């Protein structure tokens, strides 16, 4: 079973940024993404989204070049004003070529 080494980009943010972040991901040639409802606490403490109840976790498996571009875009747009955390992990993906 040949596994392809790719990057899993994880972004956790306030819910209302969801659609914008998905746009960014798609623009950077991600073939798909997975959303999870999460909640959490961070440096910014209480925030509007706390009232709306939840944050959202967005994961996308992409090539490391796309990963860089996504990360770059996210941090340019959101880090100053919004509640966001983003990180990447190396994953070994089945039929990984499908996601490049």
């Amino acid at each position: 079973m040949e596994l392809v080494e790719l990057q899993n980009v994880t972004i956790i943010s306030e819910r209302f940024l969801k659609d914008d972040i998905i746009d960014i991901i798609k623009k950077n040639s991600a073939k798909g993404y997975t959303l999870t409802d999460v909640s959490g606490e961070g440096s910014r403490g209480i925030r509007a989204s706390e009232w709306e109840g939840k944050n959202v976790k967005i994961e996308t498996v992409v090539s490391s070049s796309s990963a860089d571009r996504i990360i770059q875009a996210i941090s340019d747009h959101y880090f100053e004003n919004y509640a966001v955390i983003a990180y990447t992990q190396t994953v070994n993906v089945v039929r990984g070529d499908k996601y490049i």
Partner: protein
Amino acid sequence: MESILSNFSSPVVLAFVLGIASKFVKSDLEFPRPLYQSISIYLLLAIGLKGGVELSKTTFSVFLLPATATLALGIITPLTAFVIIRYIRKLDMSNSAGLAAHYGSVSMVTFLVAISFMEDKGMQPEGYMPTLLALLEIPGIIVALMIPIAVSKNVASLGKALHEVVTGSSIFLLIGGVIIGYIAGPEKFGPVSPFFVSGFQGALFLFLLELGMTTASRFRDLKKVGAFIIFFGVFVPILHAVLAIYFGYWAGLSTAGITVLATMTSSASYIAAPAAVRIALPKASPSIYLTASLGITFPFNITLGIPLYYYLTVLITG
């Protein structure tokens, strides 16, 4: 005075207190979010439908003056709120405009508690009040978001925020309900009404239980936001209520109608406004505007405010 006491023995207010209590005793009670969402969908549609059916019986002319008065309040109140917070408290632009948006808009639940308060007294406000609620929800937010632009301070994605305001689920369901109720009319609405009418007070009861829990979790920020915000959260509503009483009186509303108009004008939004402000003014701190609207103004209004506004209405108009 005794109407305050009697207000405190009303089940919906007691449910609110119970919700607050659950946080203070650290009960593991959790109010499922889908239930919260479902009840708001239900309440908004119920208000809208009922209002629409009533509207279908109302002649436009009767409705004209109250509507004008309401729109005027929607434009004035965010400005008064803004001036007070910006020039007296000297809060920065983002936070001032953010707060203004909240006090320019309305709180549906406060509106509902006011209505059942009047019904407890055996008085019926005008049937088209829900339509006024819809008219009052939007303009205030828009006006407030315009302020920073007016003073040439760029606003993050205003367009997106405005779209959020006018298509936000609360306003969408409220207006949608009004339209459906208006088209369907009394007869067609008949079969649906048991669900939306007889269950109403109970749903409101559960909703206030949840709001009590949310409000309580706001209290911990009271210190953080400081004394002026607390003063602001009590004074501005009273100011706006008095304003509304004169406007309502001028528009020829009944005592019940004026009291309800005063209450909704005094109320601060904690659903439509926060969403829009978060988008348009990300630098405005949620702990300030949510604590003010939800932690101070909301509990003040449903406990002391409404009886007070009723008292003032009688005083001024009677």
